[in-house]
């Protein structure tokens, strides 16, 4: 896992930790809901009508509370095809890492804006969920807030690091 070479402020650490707990709770709720809904449908013959709509919200919350941790830990999937010659020059590599951080910040806010547009559209058009007919805009606005929090935390992290990071992101599927 990549490491930041600067110490994180306790506030940022606490917020990040809090978000990761929310993501964990949301994922557990998702699992429990699916488990219970299968039980209700096949054993008690009483399908939980709200299950699909709640699952969609929980999935979104899991993703958008998880993204800040992924970004802060720099665990996004990366390819690094052309980086070998740059990595041999520490100054050049640091500039590359700063540019990447700035790009990540820009794309995070861009994603927040895209979600904000969608939320506004849902609000204006009274878009509702498929089964329970709940309005969708509140959950999308929640996603916007979560993305923005992630963006702010990473902006802070990137400012402190100023390209002084080591390691490589990645994921196992």
């Amino acid at each position: 896992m990549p490491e930041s070479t600067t110490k994180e402020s306790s506030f940022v650490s606490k917020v990040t930790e809090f978000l990761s707990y929310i993501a964990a709770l949301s994922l557990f709720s998702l699992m429990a809901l699916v488990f219970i809904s299968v039980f209700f449908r096949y054993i008690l013959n009483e399908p939980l009508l709200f299950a699909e709509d709640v699952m969609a919200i929980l999935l979104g919350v899991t993703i958008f509370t998880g993204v800040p941790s992924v970004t802060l830990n720099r665990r996004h999937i990366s390819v690094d095809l052309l980086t070998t010659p740059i990595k041999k020059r520490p100054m050049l590599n640091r500039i590359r890492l700063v540019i990447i951080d700035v790009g990540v910040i820009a794309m995070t806010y861009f994603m927040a804006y895209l979600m904000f547009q969608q939320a506004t559209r849902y609000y204006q058009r009274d878009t509702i969920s498929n089964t329970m007919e709940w309005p969708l805009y509140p959950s999308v606005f929640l996603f916007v807030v979560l993305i923005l929090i992630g963006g702010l935390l990473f902006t802070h992290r990137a400012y402190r690091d100023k390209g002084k990071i080591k390691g490589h992101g990645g994921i196992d599927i």
Partner: protein
Amino acid sequence: MIELAIGILALLMIAGLGFPLGFSLLFVGTTGFAMIHPRGLDAAMTVAGQQILELAANHQFAVLPLFMLMGVFVTKSGIADNMYDVASKWLGHMRGGLALSTVTACGGMAAISGSSMATAATMTKVAVPAMRRYKYDDAFSAGTVAAGGTIGILIPPSGALIIYGLLSETNIAHLFMAGIIPGIISILLYVVAIQVVCLIKPEWAPRADRATWRARLIGLKDIWGIAALFLLIMGGIFFGVFTASEGGGVGAGGALLIAILRKKMSPRIFLDSLKEAAMLTATVFSVGFGALMLNQFVNIAGAPAEILAFINSLGLTPWGVIAVILCCFVVLGTIVDGPAMIFLTVPIFVPVVAELNLGMDPAYQLVWWGIIMVVAVEISFITPPIGMNVFVISSMLPDVPLMKIYKGITAFFIADLIRLAMFVNFPGIVLWLVKWMG
């Protein structure tokens, strides 16, 4: 089409410099779409927003985090560790028995963890010390674990198949069923590869002690719960009792229950598992957002039709096209790691494959291609210079040089190529169970 060529070049540049793949895909996809669409950036941003929400807030896609959670529960609680122990009791006394046990245990673990590197890492810890104790050749031991680990992404529930299903809009339950027979064949071919190595170099893999029948039967009690869980999930999906997402929920809940009953789930492990699975989910979905947007760009650029027209102008048959695409995978596999390869290639190759007349039922063509693609990605896990499984094992066995591990993989690599050729030439092997399922 020129816009797409520029876009792909830009994507390789941006992502190649280390910019996160998901953001690279989203940036190139949105910009490219804006350049082609008459309503420009406005339309591109609307489509991008819709794509993100369709993926992030769609209950059908809960299948991915739920199966990931099941894999993390199983791996972190260590309830899969005794699979090797059981396999070695049953097979260890045979020629190359501990290597056979490793491959079989890898298949068993793959069936519940769905992860290639997790399988390789776990097996390195449990199988390599045993093989060393019986004076197995280090290259062969490490090669067996590296190759055995690749089975992890083919046997369902497989993270790679789920991601392919999400991106290509292919039925995930069908993909799971299609993965079962190829997964079993993979294990059998590895068994043959081990036997061939033992014939040529018997000193590489001596026989281990024979376990008593009592010990073998007692060992089974450690794995019956996990085996039952796998059968419950796959049976449920096959007979239409569960959707794939429900199978994931039951699988994760079941794995948690088994771990608790075996007293292998502490509050710390439980919380860590949830946090890790949530983080994996966020990582994969953030790349998925970008891949879907690149898909939109590829489609609006008319790429599938133009690529097909170009291929037709070369006079290639549809099967020739498949061969060319597989060659691209081999080349990509030497420089790009497995997960990135799936995200990069699905938007570009799937529309092309969907248009080819391969003489099979069009409803199943993308299911077949999903398996072929995952097998190609599997091979990339052990292909130099970037073989992810080889790197994992190398980091855990620093005294075994990387080149030695690659040497130990040779027999398995040949088996992999035979396997790929089999599945390409005989699609019925892949699709038989899916067609039976209906």
